[in-house]
């Protein structure tokens, strides 16, 4: 699974996710990536989010939308909301991660797996690439 979240100079945000799914998947199984609100969500009033991991858990938690709702309604920072959502994911036994960008500041991420391919760049920050 791959994804990107962006905020442009006009302050508009967008999220995109793309995946081949699970190795050996059967019966037309679809995970969270294409489900708006689960693996992908963007709302200029809050944040843009893209997820990766055990999709069934992200679907049940509605993670991408829930993160945006926490920012919009509870005033959370995207980083705090992202950590909280990954915490809930772990409590359910799920594994994975997410990236987010908010109305200001650089993008960020949260994950509970040993590794996550991730990178970020911003107008006023040096690019960063990491795996572990």
């Amino acid at each position, binding site marked *: 699974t791959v994804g990107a979240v962006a905020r442009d100079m006009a302050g508009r945000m967008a999220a995109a996710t793309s995946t081949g799914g699970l190795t050996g998947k059967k019966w037309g199984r679809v995970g969270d990536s294409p489900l708006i609100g689960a693996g992908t969500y*963007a709302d200029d009033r809050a944040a843009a989010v893209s997820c990766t991991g055990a999709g069934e858990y992200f679907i049940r938690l509605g993670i991408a939308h829930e993160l945006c709702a926490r920012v919009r309604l509870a005033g959370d920072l995207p980083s705090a909301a992202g950590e909280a959502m990954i915490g809930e994911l772990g409590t359910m036994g799920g594994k994975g991660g997410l990236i987010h960008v908010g109305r200001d500041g650089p993008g960020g991420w949260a994950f509970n797996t040993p590794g996550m391919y991730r990178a970020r760049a911003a107008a006023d920050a040096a690019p960063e690439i990491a795996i572990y």
Partner: protein
Amino acid sequence: MSWALAIHGGSGSMRRGHLSQADDEAGRAGLAAALEAGAAVLRRGGSALDAAQAAVEVLEDDPHFNAGRGSVFTAEGRIECDAAIMAGSDLAAGAVAGLRTTRHPVAAARAVMERSPHVFLAGAGADAFAHAHDIEAADPAWFETAERRRQLDEILARPDGRFDSDMKYG
């Protein structure tokens, strides 16, 4: 307002030392190329939508990532891709599932968002919609890689194994 971009290429059980040097370098190179593709759009004042799509399309073409080319195989030995895209300004969204012959699934999702009254299309209909809207088609062989085929063979050799646990190649 200053621009910002974040990307991911999947999460999983890869631990330091778990990936070969070559895979580690290939993963970082893929991320760097995708980051630059998206940042270049934002630096010239382009839209967040275009930046997110540009970054994802680079990763869809990179065989090291599980999306587009280099996707994992289904139990039947096929490749079926899913994608979504969403604009925060008006909550417009597009999504596709089960694509088999569309090179950039995220481009198909964007076409659903901008050129259809729907949000989510699946299966053969989604491929047909993409091709009817001039989204680049690709032969199923384009998506296949030997490493993903090997991973499928490994999983099929353990039919009793839970197909999404330590054997997950997400």
